[in-house]
């Protein structure tokens, strides 16, 4: 019996290693290409490692400058644009999202069902259905190729999710928390800003994490709405590299690594929040 236990444990660990290898190998390969000397990228037979580390691709992107308008510089600017767009989107979405969630849970505004509908709608809608009209309207308003149009779009796409997460959290707070503040004459707004929001840190953070990552990774809207360095995002710059007829694999792999640092850091440090965000809606139902 004991021996059999031992054996099945061994098989399980082996299977887990296979799963982990399947996940890590593609990432390792990308990292390897980004650090390979140029000659080794295009040499056969395939090698698992690199003869020496080569950081030229990283330098090429990080120290690229405006005069040489090339893929490296486009990507660097794309990273900057993506950062501005994602941070702005996150702050505005989480702010308005928590106000709305507070109104729904505490102030007896009958909007909860409409909100649930919006959450489902934004999930189910094929994004192209919105991209076409927003492109036409944005064109008329002169907003094409601006960060503003992307920020506005991303706020709307992420608001329902954000309200959903915040509402779930506010529902777990006992109303007595604010009541003392109300008695003290703080007023509703005072109670919201001085008491409720300060203790909602984990929920605000979870919502922010998801909004940021969604905005950082979005592609279709950015592809259609932006056309040059002013607003092009990191994902669009990356897609241009992938689609080139003669692709510089070293540079392309490096852009993939640089564009993934933030999301991977989220997993490394804030795994708990990500898991609670994924399962929060699903398991409670």
């Amino acid at each position, binding site marked *: 019996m004991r021996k059999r236990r031992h054996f099945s444990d061994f098989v399980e660990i082996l299977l887990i290693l296979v*799963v*982990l290898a399947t*996940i*890590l190998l*593609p*990432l390792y390969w*990308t990292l390897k290409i980004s650090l390979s000397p140029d000659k080794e990228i295009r040499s*056969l037979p*395939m090698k698992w490692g690199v003869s020496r580390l080569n950081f030229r691709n990283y330098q090429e992107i990080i120290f690229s400058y405006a005069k040489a308008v090339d893929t490296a510089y486009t990507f660097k600017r794309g990273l900057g644009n993506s950062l501005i767009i994602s941070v702005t989107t996150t702050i505005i979405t989480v702010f*308005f999202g928590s106000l*709305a969630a507070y*109104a*729904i849970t505490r*102030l*007896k505004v009958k909007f909860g069902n409409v909100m649930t509908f919006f959450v489902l709608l*934004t999930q*189910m*809608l*094929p*994004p*192209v*259905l*919105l991209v*076409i*009209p*927003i492109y036409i*309207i944005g064109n008329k308003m002169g907003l094409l190729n601006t960060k503003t149009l992307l920020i506005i*779009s991303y*706020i*709307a796409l992420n*608001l*329902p999710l954000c309200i959903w997460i915040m509402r779930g959290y506010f529902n777990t707070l006992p109303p007595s928390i604010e009541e003392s503040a109300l008695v003290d004459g703080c007023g*509703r*707004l005072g109670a919201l800003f001085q008491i409720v929001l300060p203790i909602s840190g984990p929920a605000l953070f979870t919502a922010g994490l998801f909004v940021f*990552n969604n905005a*950082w*990774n979005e*592609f*279709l809207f950015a592809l259609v709405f932006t056309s040059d360095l002013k607003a092009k995002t*990191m*994902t669009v710059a*990356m*897609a241009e*590299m*992938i*689609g080139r007829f003669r692709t510089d694999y070293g540079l*392309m*792999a490096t852009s*993939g690594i640089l*564009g993934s640092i933030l*999301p*991977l850091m989220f*997993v490394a440090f804030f*795994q708990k929040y*990500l898991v609670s965000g*994924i*399962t929060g809606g*699903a*398991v409670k*139902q």
Partner: protein
Amino acid sequence: MSKKTRTLAAQDKRLGIILLLPAIIILCAVIVYPMAHSLWLSTQNLNVSNPARGREYVGFQNYLEVLHSSDWWLSLLRTLYFVGADLLIGIPLGLSIALLLNKERKGKGIILAIILFPYVLAPIVNSLIWKLIYDPNYGFLNGFLTQLGIIKDYIPWLARPTLALVMLIIANLWQGTPFAIVLFLAGLKSIPKEEYEAAAIDGASRITSFQYITIPHLKPIIYMNVVMKTILTFKLFDIVYSLTGGGPGGSTTVVSMLIYRESFEYMKFGQGAAMSYLLLFFVLILVIVYSRMFKGEES
């Protein structure tokens, strides 16, 4: 109710509406209004090739044209093939891996973090990674399979019409399965241990307790996975656009790729809008069918 509390309630309500207003305005401006605009567009012929004629109302003509085109039905079939493969492989795979991990082990946190890696990456990064793996000359897949002695000649994975869609499905599963694993893990955690213990005392084997305890408890999670995977895969665009561009020979042109091309390469916004609504309609039908199926089984 005293007068004071009544005015307080009225104040609350007014404040509530003020707090909701920004969200409502944004959602109306960026989601509701564009949806209506899209619906209107789908009844117009914009005559992009002949701007002098301007646009004209054509009723359901765009919809009829789409429904009569083989391009539409072929791309819908490809999408359904994609969705089907994703469900039939992705859900059992996600459940198996969740079962494997559903045990207190050393390093469980690290394992879970690694499993989440693909989930947080941009779909475009996913394309980039698989482009490097599928590359016909220097890619990892050909190199690895040659080293193992499985293949002798390098295979152009994305250049063969029958293979390309399969390779996209694999790339998509790599990114999509972690979500299923996390959901299943949460579901498994919520099953009371006592039920398994009681079953073990009654002499039930692991397979029977899986069949009669695990699966029934996980039904809502399975449903959730089926719905989410269907919705996400129907929308799939990024990896198709950047890995194959819909080729070779149209063999990977899924619906959203077709809509993108009609709208932004041929500038046929009316047709694109009509197709988008048809796509939404198909997804809705599927979701309704699913909920009937799952509810029907319960009763």
